[in-house]
């Protein structure tokens, strides 16, 4: 009988510790200054235009070079209160750093904007306080549903303006995908939790953990109890691949796998000897690399289309490959196979490179564990708990982040647009500004 090899503790404690430490070491002060001096201080800089939160990048880099890291941090955090985690998780290679003019002079060597941002925000966090002071309380109350990047950014900005905020989240801790859904080595040393504490130190924000919309409270009650509501609960449900065998033991949602890594002792987390990850996004890469770093012997990342269509960036893909993940393109999963109910392999329709005019070949890759990362959907429970206008499975908002319900705003992954942390932060920040402005108009 087939033995399915899924086990925890494949590596010793020391190896696990080093495998899940921060992958890219922070810049030392002298490195930061040297790197800052590479910046040309472009006018109307293309990097700013490429940043969803429009951080004034040349200005903060200049401040670092001038020995003013606190000023640099304030510039970043004024635009993006989660600048620390964005510095760690942003795909800068397709955002600010892609647009850096240094690419045109020395290809592939943009100014290391992300690393410099991390340097400045880390400096500020090490001071133990944030550089903002809350305005006098206004007495206005806002409910924020979802304590991920969008919800936190919105709460902070509202609190800054003196409004009282309650954040509801089904998880016991705030942070959302930053806390639960990103590879541990990107947010090492409890960074996400420390950043949330830093953010909440503005005051005026109450976290209501372990409470789910539609179960513990309803949108109607929020609308009655609060002056405004901001919905930022993300998507919540992983999409299924839609093939036979997905319910076999050993098949797991990649996000759940990542959450285990972020919340449990590393040596307790089971991982297959041979792992297949189905998907082509950053979640797939995070799951694949972490499976390797937990000690999986072989990890294959199978994506049904080619490198151009893959949503994981080239840098992410190369990161996977240097971590020993085998990336297979044009591999469309057909079914997850088993022997007597024990997961044994995944069958793919594979179209070899250059043979797209021919019928795909069937290919069977043996596996002990399958992680699926083919995108997320909005939790149907959430959808039925609200009566807001939806489109393509997401909440529809206008340019002021207003939903179809008066007083109800939304942003982040539960609305349409880029599913990026930095875009969620912008949504939260700008929705807060819209709510604040609406309060001002009420008064008049």
């Amino acid at each position, binding site marked *: 009988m087939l033995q399915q090899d899924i086990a925890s503790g494949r590596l010793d404690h020391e190896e696990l510790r080093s495998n899940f430490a921060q992958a890219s070491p922070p810049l030392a002060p002298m490195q930061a*200054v*040297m790197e800052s*001096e590479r910046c*040309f*201080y*472009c*006018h*109307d*800089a*293309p990097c700013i235009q490429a940043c969803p939160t429009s951080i004034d990048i040349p200005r903060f880099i200049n401040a670092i*070079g001038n020995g003013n890291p606190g000023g640099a941090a304030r510039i970043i955090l004024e635009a993006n209160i989660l600048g620390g985690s964005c510095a760690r998780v942003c795909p800068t290679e397709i955002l600010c750093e892609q647009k850096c*003019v*240094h690419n*045109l*002079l020395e290809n592939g060597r943009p100014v290391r904007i992300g690393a410099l941002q991390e340097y400045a925000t880390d400096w500020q966090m090490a001071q133990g306080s944030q550089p903002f002071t809350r305005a006098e309380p206004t007495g206005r109350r806002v409910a924020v549903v979802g304590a991920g990047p969008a919800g936190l950014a919105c709460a902070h900005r509202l609190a800054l303006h003196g409004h009282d905020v309650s954040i509801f989240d089904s998880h016991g801790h705030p942070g959302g995908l930053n806390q639960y859904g990103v590879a541990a080595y990107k947010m090492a040393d409890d960074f996400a939790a420390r950043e949330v504490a830093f953010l909440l130190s503005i005051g005026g924000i109450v976290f209501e953990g372990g409470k789910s919309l539609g179960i513990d409270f309803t949108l109607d009650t929020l609308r009655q109890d609060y002056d405004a509501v901001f919905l930022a609960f993300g998507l919540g449900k992983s999409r299924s691949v839609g093939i036979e065998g997905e319910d076999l033991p050993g098949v797991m949602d990649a996000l759940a796998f990542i959450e285990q890594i972020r919340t449990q002792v590393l040596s307790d987390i089971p991982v297959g000897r041979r792992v297949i990850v189905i998907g082509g996004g950053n979640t797939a890469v995070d799951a694949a690399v972490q499976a390797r770093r937990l000690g999986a012997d072989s990890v294959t990342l199978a994506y049904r289309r080619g490198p151009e269509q893959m949503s994981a960036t080239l840098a992410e893909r190369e990161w996977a490959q240097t971590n020993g993940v085998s990336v297979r393109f044009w591999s469309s999963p057909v079914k997850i196979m088993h022997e007597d109910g024990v997961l044994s392999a995944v069958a793919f329709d594979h179209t070899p490179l250059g043979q797209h005019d021919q019928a795909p070949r069937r290919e069977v890759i043996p596996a002990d564990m399958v992680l699926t990362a083919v995108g997320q959907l909005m939790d149907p429970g959430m959808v039925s708990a609200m009566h807001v206008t939806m489109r393509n499975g997401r909440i529809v908002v206008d340019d002021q982040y207003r939903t179809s319900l008066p007083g109800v705003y939304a942003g982040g992954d539960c609305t349409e647009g880029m599913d990026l942390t930095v875009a969620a932060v912008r949504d939260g920040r700008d929705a807060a500004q819209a709510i604040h402005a609406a309060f001002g108009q009420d008064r008049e």
Partner: protein
Amino acid sequence: MADLKTEFAGIRSPNPFWLASAPPTDKAYNVKRAFEAGWGGVVWKTLGEDPPVVNVSSRYGGLHHHGRKMIGFNNIELISDRPLAVNIAEIKAVKAAYPDRAVVVSLMVPCEEQSWRAILPIVEETGADGIELNFGCPHGMSERNMGAAVGQVPEYVEMVTRWCKQFTRMPVIVKLTPNVTDILMPARAALRGGADAVSLINTVQSIIGVDLDQMAPMPVVDGMGTHGGYCGPAVKPIALRMVGEIARDPGLAHLPISGMGGIETWRDAAEFLAMGASALQVCTAAMHYGFRIVQDMIDGLSAWMDEKGYQDIHALSGRAVRNYVPWNTLNLKFRTIAHIDQERCVGCGLCHIACEDTSHQAIAVGGVSGARRYDVIESECVGCNLCAHVCPVAECITMQPQPVDGHVTWREYEHSAERLAGCSVAHGV
């Protein structure tokens, strides 16, 4: 290969690169290392009367700019703090060991005839090739009525130079301080006193920076600072001007000039030679990188001279002097305009914002569908060059001279009917 051999005020050296009187030439140990590295000569660090001076601890300050260390440098060090006899013995030994190199001795003693009369024979006995009178040191020694305190009074310069010419057969080079309003005054005084040559510039009086914790000028000596002498690449423009001023003066035209002040590369060297120097001195660059830097100075200068067809130093020296003129001699009809090479442009926008905010609003922002493009509005461009200087990309913005329609100088234009009628001659308006 171009011939770099130099004869300066009768002193021969295999190349024009001498180390200036300063810490690198304070001891035989350093000077031997310099000669081994290829330096053509040295001016030994200034000797004074015994007992020797006492130096303070903490002596140098650096001006660093955007990742470049020591673009400017200053010091509060005095002349040699070793006994005269020690220096004299070492000079003699070094000159004997390196007879083909120039060994010049810098001197500074009180402004009294007896002091100079006493020291000159002692120096002459070493076999040194010449002396350089330190009339330039702007700190410390000047408070004791030496150094720049002499150099700033033309009568003293002339008097001391004359004594030296009287009491020694050695060539006398007078080192000038830049801390004067008109460099021609001490240069003429030196010539009147019989100087064989001048050397310039000595350091510029300076405070290199302020220690904001100790609230004292740097370098800080036990909580206090004093002004120092400024040198390094940042002073090169000041030095070039003063060298050119002397070189173009009809009365001084035949006075040999040893040029110095911020020379760090062969190109700097070529510029000083072109502005009228016929020998060169270097200090800060050697203190920054070590003596090995002379190798590329020699190699680069030689290669460039070959490329340009200058066979020797004499052929090059002073070549730019005739083109160094008063402003009123420039052609008001000449016009140059900026040109942006769109292939090279990276779109940083620095040219635009510099021109827009601070100059002539002559660079327009263009580009369609997010592309960044900057274009010169030629009718608005006055040819100021600002954009070309702020552009971080080599040869992206070039200044393009336009066909010249005539020649009018201010001297010709000042009283012209055209001007008096209120219209502008420039740019054909």
